[in-house]
Structures are given as structure tokens and as C-alpha cells.
């Protein structure tokens, strides 16, 4: 396979998107669901709360990713509290511990972290104008972080 063929294969697959809602209840504790460049790891206990993420102007819900472009509109809607982690070091340790439970490794950098989402008894969703939504089951906790961009040595921007 050459470069053109490999890229063509990706382009063909991209033309068959699956936009149906991803069901977060299928994700076990310590496992991850991804929405675009945002990763959500389900966790059994919420990290220590930092600043609460405020309701954003122009969107219904709490936008966990900073920014005003359509690409940054990863918004938690429903019965949930979203907050920045008070102790990012503890959160990365928590991610590594969960990964270890599944026999995997994790090295999430502190600057990649967005914070945590604590879902209430009525459940919530992580929405986005273009990516598939993720249904977050009631009374679940999630840690959110972003992809890392190697060329800029910082988390991905969109």
C-alpha cells in the first residue's frame, strides 16, 4: 500500500460516518469514550472539585473546552456539574491507576486536562454541533482531557 492508497482508504471510511449517540453506560469504569479531540474516562469517584465551569453565553449547558469556535463546543447538557480539577496531579494519578487496572498505561499530561463531570440522577449528555453526542448515565463521574499536539507541544486547539 502506498501513501495515496492509505489516505484514500481513510477518506472512503470518513464518508460513512456514524452520527448516532454513543451510549456512555456501555463504558466501564476506567475505560474511555472519545468525542473528537476530547477523551472522557469513566471513574468511580469524582476528583476534588476546583472552579465550577460556568454556564456559557450562547449555548445551553456547560462548555468544558475553552474557546468560542464551533469546534470547541463540547457542551455538557442535563443534570451534571462540570468543574476544573483542584489538584491536577491527583487526577493524572487517578487516570494512571484506572489504566493499570485494565493492564494498560497512561501518561496524560497535566496541561491536557479539562476537568471532571459529575452526572446527577437524571443523567446528562456531552453534545457537540458536529460530533456524535455521548449519553452520560445517571450518577456517573467522568474525567475529561484533550489530545496533545506534538508540533505545538500543547493540547489540541479547534
Amino acid at each position, binding site marked *: 500500500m502506498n501513501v495515496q492508497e492509505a489516505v484514500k482508504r481513510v477518506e472512503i471510511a470518513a464518508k460513512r460516518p456514524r452520527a448516532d449517540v454513543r451510549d456512555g453506560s456501555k463504558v466501564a469504569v476506567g475505560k474511555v469514550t472519545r468525542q473528537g479531540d476530547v477523551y472522557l*474516562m469513566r471513574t468511580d469517584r469524582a476528583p476534588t472539585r476546583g472552579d465550577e465551569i460556568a454556564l456559557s453565553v450562547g449555548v445551553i449547558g456547560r462548555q468544558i473546552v475553552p474557546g468560542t469556535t464551533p469546534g470547541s463546543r463540547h457542551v455538557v447538557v442535563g443534570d451534571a456539574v462540570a468543574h476544573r480539577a483542584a489538584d491536577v496531579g491527583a487526577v493524572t494519578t487517578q487516570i494512571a491507576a484506572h489504566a493499570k487496572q485494565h493492564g494498560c498505561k497512561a501518561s496524560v499530561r497535566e496541561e491536557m486536562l479539562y476537568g471532571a463531570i459529575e452526572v446527577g440522577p437524571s443523567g446528562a449528555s456531552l453534545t457537540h454541533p458536529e460530533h456524535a453526542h455521548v449519553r452520560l448515565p445517571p450518577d456517573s463521574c467522568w474525567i475529561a482531557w484533550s489530545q496533545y499536539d506534538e508540533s505545538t507541544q500543547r493540547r489540541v486547539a479547534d
Partner: protein
Amino acid sequence: MKKYKLTSEHRAQLPAWRDKWIANAMSTEPMTEDDREACRDAVLRMYAAAKLPPPKHIVFVPSPFVLRFAGGFAAGIWHLAGAQKSRSVDVTAATRDATYAATYAATRDATDAATYDATRDARRHARRHVRRHVRRHARCDGRRNGRRHARRHVRRHVRRHARRHARRHARRHVRRHARRHARRHARRHVRRHGRRHVRRRARRAATRDATDVAAYDATDDESRYYVFRGLHRMGELANLLGVGQIGLDCAKNAWRMWSGGNQWSGWTASISFFRHIAQLDIDYTAWDAWEVLTRRSGPRIMHPDFCMISDRPARLMVDDQNRPHCDDGPFCSWRDGSMIYAVRGQYVPAWIIEHPDRIAVAEIRAETNIEIRRVMIEKMGTGRYLTESGATLVDADERTSEGGGPRALLRDSDGSQWLCGTDGSTSRVYYMSVPNDVMTCRDAHCAIAGIDEDLVEQEG
């Protein structure tokens, strides 16, 4: 009270209701005097409903860009005035001045640019006309007459051109000197007489300033997407209005005072459905003002002391999914010349659309935003990008998780590596920068995700 349930009769009206409010959000009609009068009345009613004293000023501006700066500067001036009452600053005039200065900076530049474009075209047209005329005469009247005619035309043309060139040069020279002088003079006045004189000077000098003030560019990423012709002058303008960094900060945070007007039609569509279609037994008197403003105006800033309202855009283009989109120009532009560019929902800097021929591999590598990088590669053409970047295939595989798909790890001529993949839900192909030492797609994904990809069960 009985709980409302959507009836089939009401449900049948939903499509028409939706279309009506989408049309309102997409409106490019300029505001009329009737609209302005209705808006003034609605604003007063809205302040009364919020139990606030009426605003001292209701000001109309041509675009959200002017709204943001004029509103921010005016808020800064009112804030400073509140903090320093003893200096008896005339804030009433200040609001007007801030609006005027910001509007003037934007519209004057837009007018200049438009005039220049128009006259350049006219000149080109005239030259073409003269050439054609000369050639035709030469053919009809024989060579001698033609030469005489041509000489006369050329002489007249050269004289006219020389005069015009001299005039323009002189004007530019005078303007530059005047600007420099005015600025120096204004600064001296600031020191001597305080803010009131600054405002007066600001009206004259600040708007013509062409110095290296890019303060706002440095403070806000958003500005790279906007073409707002007076943008580079706003820092200087803030200084001359006496609000400095506070004014710029207020402009940056103007969203705190922001209401979307017709751009936020979605909210109004939802609530007014229950008012007009479901006809719930609720007192909508206070709500009515909001609804009027959504129908009759663009975004607005509501401040305890003033309210500023923007006009609707002159052009607004979207794709089949109603996302901001235009492949060959701004997707949205206002009557003062400000505009924004977007490709299928992604804001992009203007040059990518206006000069796609300038997109090169180096520019793509330097771009830090992956969505813009994706658009640049699309514009350049994937095949051309891969050829010019000298890419080779390092690895290719396929993810089997929910939403997963095929991927390819590519290495370009300078050794940088890119993971090419899709996200499983948006039809897009991304090129993500990954470490140069990874040898498989899996390792590349682990490096940018920070976790072993076996942990990722769903993608979208």
C-alpha cells in the same frame, strides 16, 4: 395549572414555525427607521421589566464588531467615570464618542478600500477605452489622423494621470504629517487638559492612525478570523479615549453584556411557540420586548447606562447543514465592511479563502489549529499536499472500536510524522501531528491521547 401537552394540531405547525425563525436568524435586511423606533421602545420596556432605570442612550451601530469595541470602550468610560466622579468626566458625550470613533474607524477604512477598488477599476476601464478608441481611429482615419489623435489622447491621459498622482501623493503626504502632528498634539493635550480634550482629539486623530498597534490582535485569538478594517487601530483608539487597557478588556469581555438579537432566534422560537401557537395562559408582557428585539435587530449590548444595537449582516451564507460556509468569499459581511470567513462551520483566516494559491506545505505545518490545518490541506488538495510534502507511508491499520476506522501514519520530507484518520462521526479527515519516533498508528494515537488505546471503547 394543567400541564401543557403537545397536540397534533400544534405539532403540525412546528415546521412552519421553525422555518420562520430560521429565516429571521438568516435575515440580511438592513434595519429600517421603523425597526429602530420599535427597538427603542422595546429596550425601554425591557429595562422597566428588569426594574432598572431607562438607559441614558440607545445607540445603533453598523456591525457586531463596532458593537463590541464601541460597547466595550463606552463601558470602560462609564466605569472610570463612576470611579472618579470628582473629575467630572462627561460620560454622556463619551458614550457617543466611543461609538462614533469605533464606527468611524471601521467605516472610513471600508469606504477608503471600496473607493480605491472602484476608482482602480474605473481607471483600468478608462485606459482600456482609450487604447481601443485610439486603435479604432487609427484604422478608420488613416495613420496620420490616428497618430495625431493618439498623441492627443496620450498627452491628455499622461497629464491627467500625473495630476492625479501628484494630488494623491500630496494628499497622502499631508495626511501623514497631519496624523503625526495630531497624535503628538493630542497626547500633549491629554497630559495638560485631561480626558475631555482627549475625546475631542480622538475623533480626529485616532481614527486615522496607522501605527503598529496590534494590542487587540495580541489579546484575542478570535481576531484572526475577523476582517475588521479598523482593528489595528483599536488599541490606539482606546488610549486616546482615555480608557486604555481597561477599554480593550471591556471590549474583550463584551460578551458579558451581549444578547444575540436575531442571531439567537432559537431561544425566541422556542419560547414564543408557547405564546403564539400553544397560547399558554401566561403573562407575556415583559417577554414581548425581547421578542420584538429578536425580530427587529441584530446583536445588542445592554449596559446599565446605555444600550447599543447592531444592524443585521448584508450577506450570510451557509452550507446544506446551515453551517457558516463560503468557499470563495466571506460567509458573513456587514455594511461597514467587516466580515468573517468560514468553511463548513470552521472559521478560517481570510487569506486561506481569498488567496488559496498561497497555501504551501510550510504554512500548513506552521498552523497550530488542527481544524484550520485540515481546511488548508483540503484547499491545497490532499494529493498535492502529500506529493509536495514528500510523504511516505510508515504504517496503516484499522481500529475496530465503536466509531473506529482505518488510519495511516505518514512521514514527510523533514521527518515530521502525521497520523491520518477520521473521527467516526463527521466525515472529516484529520492530519494530526505525532512524535517522530513512533512506528505504528497505535503508538501514535497513544502518544497524542496520553493513554493506551485499548482503553478507548467508543469514538465519535
